[in-house]
């Protein structure tokens, strides 16, 4: 019997945490979705817990596709996605869903070459790389754009994402934008039928593959490349300049992008002189009419804070904040949320 007592004691101790915790009433708002903005969102929710101690906002990065599905199923109060939802997907949502843009980031071309020199590429070269038409590193189109860099006579191994991802969406959105062939053969989406290459899961998977395979080339988010000290290429923009991906060049791209009234915009290949061409925004997905009045009110308060104070925290974490004009437009839209 002693043993049994001891066991109930242990089980009791484990469960004792529960009532202890619930002693303080506190509202929890749940959100889920895109992985790319997860660090800045985590920062925002951490800081916002100090601004309004009565609520906690819990965000789990389950991927953009997951975010869209969970907000549709209403298992979370808000969703998040790196690509705007399509008209077909929006039609399946039970009520009107708003896209609230938050920050923007860039996709970069990373590679594994001896000495990892800085490379320059233009759009058509990228298309042909990912269509499998350029197969050697010393292809004249690559050497022509990179005078002074000695590119080896080595096979190119293309690495792409195997999972659905907003990073992929931005990448293929750009390739579709500049190439009719890509648009018709492969098209846009969070996952596509790749003509060539190896699949890898997540930014970390692509990073790992590229690091392991000499001659490999792949695309990852700028933050990922920077944090992991990967080499990445400058890309020729619509104005004809080779642009290094950075917060500044993404901010330029945002400033010159056309943003429609529903905020579902693509910002690839913008006209700006200093704009990096392969960038995209990320969105929070919020119902225009909140079901839970208390949570709805707190969510709107948070969104207002995010669009003002929150935006100023973006650059420190390598995200490009929205231009002020866009912030104002978003704030106007947040006012229309009913609860």
């Amino acid at each position, binding site marked *: 019997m002693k043993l*049994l007592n001891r066991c109930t004691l242990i*089980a009791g101790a484990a469960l004792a945490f529960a009532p202890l*915790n*619930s002693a303080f009433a506190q509202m929890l708002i*749940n959100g889920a979705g895109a992985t790319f903005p997860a660090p800045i969102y*985590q920062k925002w929710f951490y800081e916002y817990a100090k601004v309004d101690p009565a609520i906690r906002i819990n965000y789990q990065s389950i991927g953009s596709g997951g975010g869209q599905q969970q907000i549709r199923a209403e298992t979370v109060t808000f969703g998040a996605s790196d690509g705007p939802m399509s008209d077909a997907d929006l039609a399946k949502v039970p009520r009107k869903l708003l896209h609230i843009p938050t920050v923007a980031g860039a996709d970069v071309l990373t590679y594994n070459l001896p000495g990892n020199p800085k490379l320059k590429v233009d759009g058509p070269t990228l298309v042909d790389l990912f269509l499998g038409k350029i197969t050697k590193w010393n292809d004249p189109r690559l050497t022509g754009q990179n005078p002074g860099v000695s590119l080896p006579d080595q096979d190119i191994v293309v690495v792409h994402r195997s999972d659905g991802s907003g990073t992929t969406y931005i990448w293929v959105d750009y390739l579709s934008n500049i190439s009719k062939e890509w648009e018709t053969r492969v098209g846009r989406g969070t996952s596509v039928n790749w003509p060539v290459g190896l699949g890898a899961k997540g930014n970390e998977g692509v990073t790992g593959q590229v690091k392991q395979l000499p001659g490999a080339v792949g695309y990852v988010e700028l933050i990922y490349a920077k944090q992991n000290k990967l080499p990445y290429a400058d890309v020729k923009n619509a104005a004809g300049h080779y642009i290094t991906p950075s917060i500044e060049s993404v901010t330029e791209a945002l400033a010159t992008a056309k943003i429609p009234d529903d905020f579902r915009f693509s910002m690839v290949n913008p006209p700006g002189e200093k704009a990096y061409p392969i960038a995209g925004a990320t969105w929070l997905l919020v119902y225009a009419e909140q079901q839970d009045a208390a949570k709805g009110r707190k969510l709107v308060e948070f969104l207002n804070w995010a669009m003002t104070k929150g935006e100023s925290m973006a650059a420190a974490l390598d995200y490009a904040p929205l231009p002020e004009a866009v912030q104002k437009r978003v704030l106007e839209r947040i006012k229309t949320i009913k609860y």
Partner: protein
Amino acid sequence: MTAPNHRRRRFKNALMQVFTCVCAVLVTLPLFLVFFYLLKSGIGAVNGHFFTQLPAPPGETGGGMANAIVGTFELLGLAALVGVPVGVLGGVFLSEYGHSRLNWWVRFAADVLNGVPSIIWGMVVYGLIVRHGLGLNLFGAQVGLIDRGYSAWAGGLVLGLMMIPLIMRTSEEVLRLVPNGYREAALALGIAQWRTVVQIVVRTALKGIITGILLALARVAGETAPLIFTAFGNQFWNRSLADPIAALPLQIYYYAIGPYEDWHRQAWAGALVLLLLITVINVSVRVLTRDRFSQRHS
């Protein structure tokens, strides 16, 4: 005359001995490799903050997994609430009561359930509980038991469901080891059957049953996939079991796929703590079973 043959046999014998010895080492090698690798990569981030603080956002130093460690214990507690009564009573039924044809089906079902991948359990609980909530219709009045959405309840439930077939089968096995003479003696003394079962049979086999429970807990403690669909994760303290809750495997997963070096270090540390937790459970199993055998032999 037989010398060459004899030598060949001795050679064969030695060869096979070496071979089996190498295989035995190979079995234990991964455990040591995992342990030392985790120790090497994770020990640097295991400090006071790790056990006492909430996760910090990127760019801030410090931060820990206190909420995930407590969350894992809470989830295991809830899982035990679901898995232990059903599993043990099911095992008692199979061993003490039961009907041979029914028993065959119950055992078959338990064995099939044991082989179901954990992610399927997660999807089932997601579909049944998280998507729609759980309610009872009592005389026309709707009584909500679990609200729609991710919650600690759903996470505990999924782990508990996974434990049921494990506990049931081990409980049955150890209850069957109790000699029939005990039951017959008790019944012959006029003790009621329920009393025989509770006070003689179950009590005799108690250590074995607890061993089974602990092994089942160790087995589900490291589950990640079913928790993504149910417990969801939480970067803050869980204040209510109706809210999402953090768990070590979930936190490790999210940190491991993140871009930051510091997150990777914390993920290693989390993995180390999780492995230690499971090792502690397994060691207590060894201690319990050693007790059992020493008693039996004395």
